[in-house]
């Protein structure tokens, strides 16, 4: 087992002239729950999407579970099997049932047998409270239910790491808590997690570590207590004063 599941080293990202990530360095130790916080447009999504190479850094390196995925000819698809992602917009497969959403990648990508994928899939659906929706299609579910299915889909890959990019930002307010509850439940287990979120309560409750990003730079990196009680950077203080009042 690697000590650090994810390592971003001197990562720079440009979209054309737009300098979105500026010399980002981040180590994610195995088992840690990291919450990434920052203003809109600060580069949080770009940063987390570099971790599974949905965005390719302009320079610098990304290493996941000991494999440098930014290297030429790196086995990216293979590495992605162990680092699952949950998206803001759920991105469930609309032409597949809930259960098929969970079994597709394990069977096709990992070569898991259909029965095995169904068994573990049903167990995860039960865990997120949606066992009775196994045969429904995503369009028949509420946003909160869809996001819980997306989490179960991620889990059914048996990943070492879970990446969440604002998992509750597209939800109606009354559905946010049901999704957060599931994520908080997961946070109590050994799995490594990186969560981009605006939910400060969640950060306080579930995070081992809070990373604050502004204008593509990591300005704060420490425990939730440190971040919320004694932020060192002026821009962090400004951000907190806006968001906590």
């Amino acid at each position: 087992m690697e000590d650090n599941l994810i390592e971003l080293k001197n990562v720079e990202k440009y979209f054309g002239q737009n300098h979105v990530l500026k010399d980002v360095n981040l180590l994610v130790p195995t088992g840690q729950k990291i919450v990434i916080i920052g203003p809109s447009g600060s580069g949080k999504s770009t940063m987390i999407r570099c971790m599974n190479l949905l965005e390719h850094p302009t320079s610098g390196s990304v290493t996941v579970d000991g494999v440098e995925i930014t290297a030429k000819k790196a086995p990216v698809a293979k590495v992605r099997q162990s680092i699952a992602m949950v998206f803001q917009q759920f991105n469930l497969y609309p032409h597949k049932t809930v259960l098929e959403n969970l079994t597709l990648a394990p069977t096709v990508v990992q070569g898991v047998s259909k029965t095995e994928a169904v068994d573990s899939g049903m167990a995860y659906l039960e865990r997120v409270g949606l066992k009775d929706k196994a045969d429904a299609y995503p369009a028949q579910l509420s946003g909160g239910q869809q996001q819980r299915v997306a989490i179960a889909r991620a889990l059914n890959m048996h990943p070492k790491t879970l990446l969440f990019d604002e998992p509750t930002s597209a939800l109606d307010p009354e559905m946010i808590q049901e999704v957060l509850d599931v994520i908080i439940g997961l946070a109590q287990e050994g799995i490594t997690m990186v969560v981009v979120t605006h939910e400060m309560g969640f950060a306080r409750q579930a995070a081992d570590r809070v990373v604050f990003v502004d204008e593509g730079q990591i300005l704060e990196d420490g425990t939730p207590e440190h971040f919320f009680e004694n932020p060192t950077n002026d821009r962090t203080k400004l951000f907190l004063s806006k968001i906590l009042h």
Partner: protein
Amino acid sequence: MSGGFTQWFSNIQYMFSLQQWQYFFKNGFTGLLHGLLLTVEVSLLGLFFALILGIVFGVLATSQWKVARAVARVYVEFFQNTPLMLQAIFLTFGLPLIWPALVKVPLFMILVIALSMYHGAYISEAVRAGIQSIHRGQLEASLSQGMTYVQAMRYVVIPQALRVVLPPLTNQAVNLVKNTSVGVAIGAMELMYMTKQISDMTTGPAFLVAALLYFILCFPLATLARRLEDRAEVNN
């Protein structure tokens, strides 16, 4: 040349004479049926290969690989913007002079190739539009689960794109069936060619029956296309 086509109709004035129809059913009808059979075969084969070409080039046209996109673009633009008739005639009479091995390819196969290339280009455009209508998050979700680009296309993107692509695809099938009639110019013995052969003796019945046979092939397909279009609109 003007004689060429008017000659076909040299006895059109007897179109409604009983004798003509008797003569037609005795001496011409089986010929037409043979033509029909070949038209059906050419259509099925042509559609099969056009689908393969259309899917391959449609997917290439949406890939991140610049060279692939350029190749797909050139293919589509070339075949969409030159007449099928020209392509078929060149393939039959021109290319074998440069590439003699082609002489051995049967004419109906040449027709299949010409139709596949031509309609493959149109299907490719439909497939490209269909794929691009699928939200990018679908590809990203698939890739994030460790699928390769090809797996993501096969299991996630294309099955969804198919719903969008099906109506234009069915229209292409109708056009392909009708376009088998360029066989008349290259000597492939499909329905139109046989109609011409028979029409020397019995123009009216030959043309009327041929038109009816084409209609019977195409009308159900066209109806299907309209239904699919209506359904696609309801879904949106």
